[in-house]
């Protein structure tokens, strides 16, 4: 079948549709970048929705955003920036052909990704316990007949005291709060989904490198997954100030 490859010299494999390795590498990069353009538009629509509602309901959004734990968000920013850094190093070592260090960097990246998800789990868990997930259990603000709206969350209690923020009363219009959390969960949820996909890609990449698969003969696969990961980082760079640090 059509999987006949031409192998002229040792070195990276050139698939049959390409003339040489340079064409193949450039083509892969172009494809990845056009996919990233797609991703920009994918999140772009969500950022537009955020902008519109933030513009319309700024005051409510400010009051509601105090429910988010900016320390946890900051921790996640730190984790993702670090993972971006390790990916850049991984590509660097891949280009130099230093597989050992490349694998270590990739492993560090996966650890960071899991760390990000762990932090997110604590955040989400606490939000769900506080009835802030905007499904039919959603409840925000003072409810008639209740002395004080106070919900305990085991997730909050498990946090070290440094990461806990002062418990805040729930201010603002409950419906706007629900709108806020709808967008919050959609955007961070989709971002988290991208993180999970990233973990899968990195794991697959490491396994393929480990078993010396014929699919990976040069640094380009690492660079492509790296590009994707930098994009995931990029989204978070904007999500963090827009959700956790809304100015008054």
């Amino acid at each position, binding site marked *: *079948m059509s999987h006949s490859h031409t192998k002229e010299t040792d070195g990276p494999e050139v698939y049959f549709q*390409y003339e040489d390795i340079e064409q193949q590498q450039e083509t892969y990069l172009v*494809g990845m970048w056009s996919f990233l353009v797609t991703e920009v538009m994918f999140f772009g629509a969500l950022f537009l929705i955020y902008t*519109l509602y933030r513009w319309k309901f700024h005051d409510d959004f400010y009051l509601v955003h105090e429910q988010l734990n900016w320390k946890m968000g900051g921790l996640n920013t730190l984790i993702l920036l670090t993972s971006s850094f390790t990916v850049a190093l991984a590509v660097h070592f891949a280009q130099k052909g230093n597989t050992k260090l490349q694998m270590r960097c990739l492993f560090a990246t996966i650890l960071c990704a899991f760390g990000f998800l762990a932090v997110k789990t604590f955040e989400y868990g606490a939000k769900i316990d506080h009835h802030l997930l905007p499904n039919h259990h*959603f409840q925000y603000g003072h409810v008639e007949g209740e002395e004080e709206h106070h919900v305990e969350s085991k997730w909050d209690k498990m946090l070290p005291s440094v990461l806990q923020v002062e418990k805040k009363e729930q201010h603002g219009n409950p419906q706007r709060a629900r709108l806020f959390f*709808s967008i919050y969960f959609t955007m961070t949820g989709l971002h988290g989904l991208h993180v999970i996909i990233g973990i899968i890609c990195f794991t697959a990449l490491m396994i393929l490198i480990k078993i010396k698969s014929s699919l990976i003969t040069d640094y380009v696969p690492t660079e492509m997954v790296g590009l994707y990961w930098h994009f995931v980082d990029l989204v978070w760079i904007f999500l963090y100030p827009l959700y956790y640090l809304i100015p008054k």
Partner: protein
Amino acid sequence: MSATVVGQSSAKPSEPKNYLNADHTLKSWLLSVDHKRIGVMYLIAVTFFFFIGSIAAAMIRYELTSPKGILLSSEVYNKTFSAHGILMVFQFLVVVVPAVLGNFLIPIMIGARDMAYPRLNLLSLYMFITGGFLILASFVLGGVDAGWTFYVPLSTISETQISLCLVGIFITGFSSIFTAVNFIGTIHKMRAPGMTWYRLPLFIWSHYATAIVVILGTPVVAITLFLVVVERGFGFGIFSPELGGDPVLFQHLFWFYSHPAVYIMILPAFGIISEIISCFSRRPIFGYRFVAYSSLSIAFLGFLVWGHHMFLSSQSVLQGIIFSLISFILAVPSAVKVFNWTLTMVKGSVHFSTPMLYALGFMGLFVIGGLTGLYLASVDTDVHLTGTYFIVAHFHYVMVGGTILAYLGGIHFWWPKMFGRTYSEFWGRLSAMIIFIGFNLTFFPQFMVGYLGMPRRYHYYYFAPEWQFYHLLSTAGSTVLGFGFLLPALYLTYSLFKGKKAGPNPWNAKGLEWEYTSSPPITENFTQPILVTDSVYDYNPAEDSKMYEVDEEATVEDMNK
């Protein structure tokens, strides 16, 4: 086109090995990464979805023959026209030309051995089929009644299978994104040496513009429909008015994709028409660069006109006026194309073969569709006409009269290349004329009944029984049209088995796919590397005018048989 085969020719006419007979197992088809086989599989898949969509169309037309309705209840009617719209738009029109003809031809036309990412190509085929079957499953499990536009809040409160259907559309959307990524990579990086941008066939330019529109627009609609799923499934409320959300925002985001989607449907068709017109006029295309750049400017401007779908949707008046103006400007590049095709025929040696008849039909219908679009682009006439059958007629003129006629023209044009067989020219021309007549009979009365005020998506009109006349005409026309669509399916299938063997270049056309590959092409497309040295369209009407005389006699003989 002048190009040279580099190296020794090793063509062996005695043993024609090609992509069709390279391997016969089912697995070799289903897991093929050969762009030609994937194109053929797409051909089968889109034909299947088109068939189902047509059945829904037939049910709609039958229902409307009586002012009180005959066949369907209101609910079932809603589900029927939704099914028709969803299948035809997402599973047929958006993909049909790029996925079938684009997949098959782009690598051959630019002198490549395959697409840039063959495995991604196969993945997108299977995503397309998966998406399609999820959509069909949603119809079987209870139907979808919100129309193909899924406007909120109807789509968020409707108790039909909308979520499943939207997931299907989401998957299909990513399938078309992957195809577009493939096209972009292929067109940018896989061109044969010497195949510069201005030597590319216009088919490639249109597909490039289409791919750009797809990667910029499709993700937006994907996320929008995803939000509807989230709103239905989890109770999130991003478009929910009771939380302060804005349902009009859904329309904005939806049309941000879905208006450019119209150009996703029509731009590849433009590419086909450019090829056919220049081939059968034996003239180089008039104003090559104008046609090429008009594709790109349509792709660009197409993104800035979505608001003309929302003149009555509480969009601000100011923005409505601006969108109206840009919509008028958008008519310019489309007109450039039509004028250029017309001028290509001037002093050409025009020959009315089947593909040319389809192309001419396309031009007539596209002009009507385009000009009636101007009535809808102007705010004040749109207030009267929007939501009526005038709109239905308008976009069917553009989509069916435009895309499907061009697609059929392209299929007839490249059929000998795809399968190495020629079809009966007599039946081909007959089908082109039947489709043209049937189409006009179906949709022209809809302009009139729409102008009189018949609202779209109604399944009865007992309040105005005098409209029955137009509906009867329309239904009669749709019967003719359906028959017209059936004909090619029959004689093209017949030609697969009994058709005469086509040579590598039955039309004497120019282009790498005709001049440097066999029919059908071999798996690697070219036996030898190609070096392109001149423009694609070096037709010469004076030289070529005689070649049809022989051809004409053969056809007459064929018809007498």
